[in-house]
């Protein structure tokens, strides 16, 4: 008997919370509601699935959509050598999501990066300040509506001869 995929198990267990499952090119993906993120991660962390490693956490800007931002989480199970991808769509008007820092320590800086580049706020994050850009930097540079040639230098640029 073939082993059941994790996405199908999740769809059976939480039918109303999971919006969509897909497995293009062998990448198991679940799209979920925003408020279910922490609950799903706690479920996946534990045995028997043991997706105990947060590989990456990032954001995508789909400018023009109703739910403009999409958070993407990649989990890895060391015991079964399998990966799963979690996607959450966020609205531009209500741009916050549960933090995963209480579950994984490495989520701390990853979430700070996403906050820096996209402006997504993480509820329950211990120290949500910019990671890469300097103090006084305005806006979030990886958003699609950030002007391409907008510069915010720290020191004034000198006049060339």
């Amino acid at each position, binding site marked *: 008997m073939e082993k059941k995929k994790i996405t199908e198990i999740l769809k059976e267990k939480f039918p109303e919370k999971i919006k969509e499952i897909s497995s293009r090119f062998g990448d198991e993906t679940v799209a979920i509601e925003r408020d279910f993120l922490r609950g799903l991660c706690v479920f996946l962390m534990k045995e028997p699935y043991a997706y105990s490693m947060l590989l990456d956490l990032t954001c995508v800007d789909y400018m023009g959509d109703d739910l403009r931002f999409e958070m993407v989480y990649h989990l890895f199970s060391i015991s079964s050598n399998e990966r799963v991808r979690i996607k959450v769509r966020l609205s531009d008007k209500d741009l916050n999501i549960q933090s995963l820092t209480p579950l994984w320590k490495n989520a701390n800086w990853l979430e700070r990066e996403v906050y820096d580049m996209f402006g997504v706020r993480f509820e329950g994050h211990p120290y949500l300040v910019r990671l890469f*850009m300097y103090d006084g930097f305005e806006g979030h*540079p990886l958003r699609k509506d950030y002007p391409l*040639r907008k510069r915010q230098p720290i020191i004034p640029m000198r006049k060339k001869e």
Partner: protein
Amino acid sequence: MSGGWFTTKLNYVIGWGRKFSLFHYPFITACCGMEYMSTACAHWDFDRFGCGLTTFSPRQADLIMVVGTISQKEAPVLKTIYEQMCEPKWVLAVGACTVSGGIYDNYAVVQGIDNIIPVDVYVPGCPPRPETFLDAIVKLQEKIQNQEQEFRWKRRK
């Protein structure tokens, strides 16, 4: 250059001395540093041109080699280091990123270090070949030889 026989000869001698004793400070931030390393080491060896002594303090350096991408966050650091160097001082901008920002036409990168400090010789290339690097040093030596030399007890007009 105007001036009498003694002034021009003195200018020539000082220039000759300075061009063969370039103490350089490498300000290396990115991949062009590999080319700097191979140029500095035995294969190409810019010690042959009198540019061998690397100082890791800007206060003893005559020449700052800015090698690699300079981000906006790093700009105040580079400016401070340039200002810490004693006169006379020269600047070599090595690599496309340093010269013009290169491929990084974005929010994070300074579009050429001549926006921050004056540059004497630009070395293009991504990264430049060590031969280009050596050519730049020879060009800089020419410039030092032919410029009007500044020194402390010089009589100024």
